[in-house]
């Protein structure tokens, strides 16, 4: 499935409410620091077949409070290589920031009716989500402009590098 900055199409892996960071990547793997190594153990405890069966561009769908718990950036990092986007009704605060920072798109929307295996298309540019399997459009909460800028750059590090290249102050960029 294709993944570009603005258009993401993929197959859904559906999870429930309060998916915690230990579920995404267990504590024993925090010695690993690369997305490739971490991806091998994503959701290992709660969905043991995920790491071997995920296809690049697949979509994670959660309920309320996705990513609660630890501040470990290893959690979004374990998903970044294979997952196109994470959709949830709401996100835990630190996970949300971490995901945006590393360039993993995360979007709040009503995920109640999305089912495991559905094919979903997300157009970040237009702010639209379309469930192709169910033939239904889903409303999404748009990002504030400066968060959109970080996503467009591919993450906070690249965003700052771009700013440095253009000789701009990070400070001017971060607050609109």
């Amino acid at each position, binding site marked *: 499935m294709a993944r570009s900055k603005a258009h993401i199409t993929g197959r859904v892996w559906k999870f429930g409410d309060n998916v915690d960071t230990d579920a995404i990547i267990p504590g*024993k793997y925090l010695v690993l620091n690369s997305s490739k190594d971490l991806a091998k153990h994503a959701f290992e405890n709660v969905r043991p077949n995920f790491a071997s069966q995920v296809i690049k561009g697949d979509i994670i769908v959660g309920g309320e409070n996705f990513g609660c718990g630890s501040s470990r950036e290893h959690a979004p990092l374990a998903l970044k290589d294979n997952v196109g986007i994470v959709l949830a009704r709401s996100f835990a605060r630190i996970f949300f920031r971490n995901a945006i920072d590393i360039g993993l798109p995360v979007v709040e929307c009503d995920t109640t009716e999305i089912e495991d295996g559905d094919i979903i298309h997300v157009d970040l540019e237009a702010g639209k989500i379309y469930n192709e399997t169910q033939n239904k459009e889903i409303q999404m909460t748009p990002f504030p402009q400066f968060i959109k800028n970080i996503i467009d750059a591919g993450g906070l590090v690249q965003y700052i590098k771009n700013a440095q290249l253009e000789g701009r102050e990070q400070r001017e960029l971060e607050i609109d």
Partner: protein
Amino acid sequence: MGQTIAEKILSRSAGRAVAAGEFVEAAIDVAMIHDITGPLAVKTLYEIADRVWDRTKVIMLFDHQVPADSIDAAVNHLELRKFAQREGILNYDVQEGVCHQVMVEKGHVLPGELVIGADSHTCTYGAVGAFATGVGSTDMGVALASGRLWFKVPETIAFDIGGKLARRVYAKDIILTIIGDVGVNGATYKACEFDGETVAHMDIANRMTLCNMAVEMGGKTGIVAPDKATAAFLEERSFDGDFTLGSDEDATKVLRRYNASEMVPMVAKPHQVDNVVPVTDVEGQHIDQVFIGSCTNGRYEDLKAAAELLKGESVARGVRMIVIPASRTEFQRALKTGLIDIFTASGALVEAPCCGPCMGGSFGILGPGEVGLSTSNRNFVGRQGSPLASVYLCSPATAAASAIDGVIADPRTH
């Protein structure tokens, strides 16, 4: 319109008056990294800068995998030691204990400061009146490079706690009661301000327990307005600060009132922190391991509460008990006052200060089907080892009573 403490601190750090809901870029007073989240933060730092922004404002220590429990952990420690040396930052290495305890007891956090840590329980520092919050490694790397970070100014929930706690009921029981009430999502992105008569009479150790678990209901920070107890705690350690800070009367807050005198020992059942019941609902539950320690409940006051019950008693046959003081200082206090003697005499294992079993990646790991009772802060699936194990959370007194009985027990009956 008046301001909350959170708004006041972020206003000072942003250099302009700000209110809840605004996005601000703020100057960081202190930044903390540890062995687990440090390596990625350092990587980010060097992608965008050559040096840390201010070497006097960065504190590093190792606590999650201490002493190094694998070659991978040893490599992380090695790399971070090189980083600390190169940058000239303070590195407590493996010597001092759990990051949050060390940051507060060494005076790295003062009232009114804006502090970030690459650990979700950084919110603990609100116990001394700071705005402290956990961030991920990229945010930390950016802050290490620039000394600044963006924040959304949080709304405040004021938890007004009145009444006197009954015997063998503690701050841990208060915070478990609150989380059980509002849910794991009940304070997402909010500043959790704890006040009222009960908090006013609470020592800093118990306030740290309250603030520590703000993140377990989604909170951005936990905070207690600095007062006489804060001043006494810091002055005893020769640190100074602004002890007049507080929310204005007319500041916008959501108020939630609790009566501490009605509270009882509480237990969070597997596998979610808001799955909270009175201890009497789970009395008799089989346990295999008891852990007393962590940034939530590894302080001298916690060890003392547990030792009161364990004195002259033995840990039940078939139960393993692990006691880990949260810092070297707390370990020494416990040693000098005879608490460690009580623990070892009872059959408990006493380990050197570190996170221990809390993170489930180092030692004291639970096997499939085993049940752990823990004074730490999380009971997620697989948190302390096998995904087939279960973790219950409670106060140190409940943990000690249960270790003696070999099943979950009510500390009030001991």
